[in-house]
């Protein structure tokens, strides 16, 4: 007798998955590609080689990488504290982590700008020591860090909860220092989840528009993100030009995600082998 499956038939489920993914992801994305093809290679290249477009792509990807890296570090810390320690208000802090998910991004942008502008609490103090956050690329990193935090924390938390403490205790009895235990026992087990969280936060940051637009200042060549240039093109009814930038962002993101996934597969394999 064939083993009973919970979900009927491979054919049926795969079919549904394909239809679902096609309707939601593949068809809209291929429409973007098709639209950008209407430009022709020469015009396509002219759009992308414009210094302003290049500056914005560098800024979008650079700021997203920086923010995701910050989140990888501090998100790990947050997830660690929330899973390993009991303290009053832990549940509230746990819930607060999700807020950037739930908040409309424009609200986040307005709140952060009010805080970090020269007239805001934090911005005023920082300005007195010569650091400008709002209306500079630094402000963009702040907004993207805010947006990306829950991705890292929420992917790490279940893994941390499942982590076998016996291994840590065994390492301790074998004379490993705390640093050694973290580096050789805990981190390898966390690394795949950390990379997933990192890439989710990064992907979110690359595409983020609503919150950044308020805090960025949007100065051409300096603090103008690529999604804003897409909107700018649309504002001129240049649909093809807008999709050209969108397609490049898609391809760059996809390549980076593939690379991160490869890295993740590698670390997972090494961890399993060890």
């Amino acid at each position, binding site marked *: 007798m064939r083993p009973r499956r919970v979900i009927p038939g491979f054919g049926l489920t795969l079919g549904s998955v394909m239809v679902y993914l096609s309707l939601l992801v593949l068809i809209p994305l291929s429409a973007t590609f098709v639209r950008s093809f209407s430009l022709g290679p020469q015009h396509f290249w002219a759009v992308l080689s*414009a*210094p*302003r477009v290049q500056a914005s792509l560098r800024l979008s990807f650079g700021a997203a990488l920086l923010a995701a890296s910050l989140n990888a570090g501090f998100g790990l810390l947050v997830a660690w504290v929330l899973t390993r320690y009991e303290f009053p208000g832990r549940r509230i802090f746990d819930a607060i982590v999700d807020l950037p998910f739930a908040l409309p991004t424009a609200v986040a942008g*307005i709140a952060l*700008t*009010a805080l970090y*502008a*020269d*007239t805001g609490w934090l911005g005023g103090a920082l300005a007195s020591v010569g650091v400008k956050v709002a*209306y500079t690329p630094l402000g963009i990193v702040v907004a993207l860090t805010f947006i990306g935090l829950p991705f890292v924390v929420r992917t790490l938390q279940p893994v941390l909860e499942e982590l076998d403490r016996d291994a840590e205790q065994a390492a301790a009895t074998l004379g490993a220092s705390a640093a050694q235990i973290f580096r050789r026992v805990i981190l390898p087990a966390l690394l795949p989840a950390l990379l997933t969280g990192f890439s989710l936060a990064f992907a979110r940051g690359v595409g983020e528009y609503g919150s950044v*637009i*308020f805090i960025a*200042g*949007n*100065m*051409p*060549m300096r603090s103008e993100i690529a999604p*804003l240039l897409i*909107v*700018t093109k*649309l*504002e*001129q*009814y*240049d649909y093809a*030009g807008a999709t050209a930038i969108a397609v490049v962002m898609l391809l760059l993101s996809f390549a980076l995600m593939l690379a991160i996934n490869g890295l993740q597969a590698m670390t997972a394999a090494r961890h399993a082998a060890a």
Partner: protein
Amino acid sequence: MGGAVEEPSGHEPQLQGGGLHGGSLLGGGLHRGGLHGGGRRGGRESLWLAVVALLILAAASTGMARAATVSLLNVSYDPTRELYADYDKAFAAYWKAKSGDTVVVNQSHGGSGTQTRAVIDGLEADVVTLALAYDIDALATQAHLIPANWQTRLPDNSTPYTSTVVFLVRKGNPKHIRDWGDLVHPGIAVITANPKTSGGARWNYLAAWAWALKQPGGSPGSAEAYVKALYQHVPVLDSGSRGATITFVERGIGDVLLAWENEAFLAVKQLGPEQFEIVAPSLSIVAEPPVSIVDAVVDRRGTRKVAEEYLRHLYSPEAQDIAARHFYRPRDPTVAARYAAQFPAIPMVTIDAVFGGWANAQATHFADHGSFDRIYGQ
């Protein structure tokens, strides 16, 4: 109780004669409404009653103008929210008196360019009332929803009310900003939005350009130099006019906000004259937010007549008065005279005279590699 028969707007002509067919429909309505008290066996009886009632209604309504409810969608830009809330009420009363029909006007507000794209992409706007002709032009050039000569169909460039670009400064005008030339003095921070993404900011840009051009020895080169210097005093480029207003008013950034006169008045009115004041420059531009019906939509929905009247009535003294109350400059000379004290007298140029119309202005200044791109070193 009148003989009002509610019906969907698209079907006005067909339903007139279809008394019996409509009877069963209306019978259902009455059934639910009040005749259901007759118990189980009353079903057939109440149906007959309904038919009789309908015949009476039909007989009654042949004697009077048949009334219907029509709906219109007016797709507009951000700062007209309050204006059209008032005008829609006035127009509904006017149309009721004129035709007997009830008109319900739905409003949609947003950034002018965003709203235009929504209409191009299929939002069923009967009329559009946007911030600049360039956006309405796109309905003709991009989607062929309206004829290319749309702006000649109504008086005054199809613009029933106008505004202009003024300066909003902090109370007491501490930086002594009187005119365009003062904006490029050292230490002055100017707030305006990005003209590539904001229709309102395009009027600001053109007003600054026009002033520089009219100075002694002014030329396109000197105008570009002035506008470039001006944008070096802009610390934040918001993507829309509302964003720029928030930056200036709420964030407290900048010494002067370049704003549409109606928005500046609104800011002073809402936030208090103890915080801000309006400065009228020596020269500005007539900002024309034009209106048009969307032919493809009104013909499909059968709303052309009421949509045309909706826009034509904007030129009536009643509507002109509403516009003036919302700080738009009226076209009607008698209404304008009544509100003369409200608006500072500013010499103004028009976009047609100085820039040769919107299509030219767009190509020269705001398209890729236009004068605005050159300002930022491209």
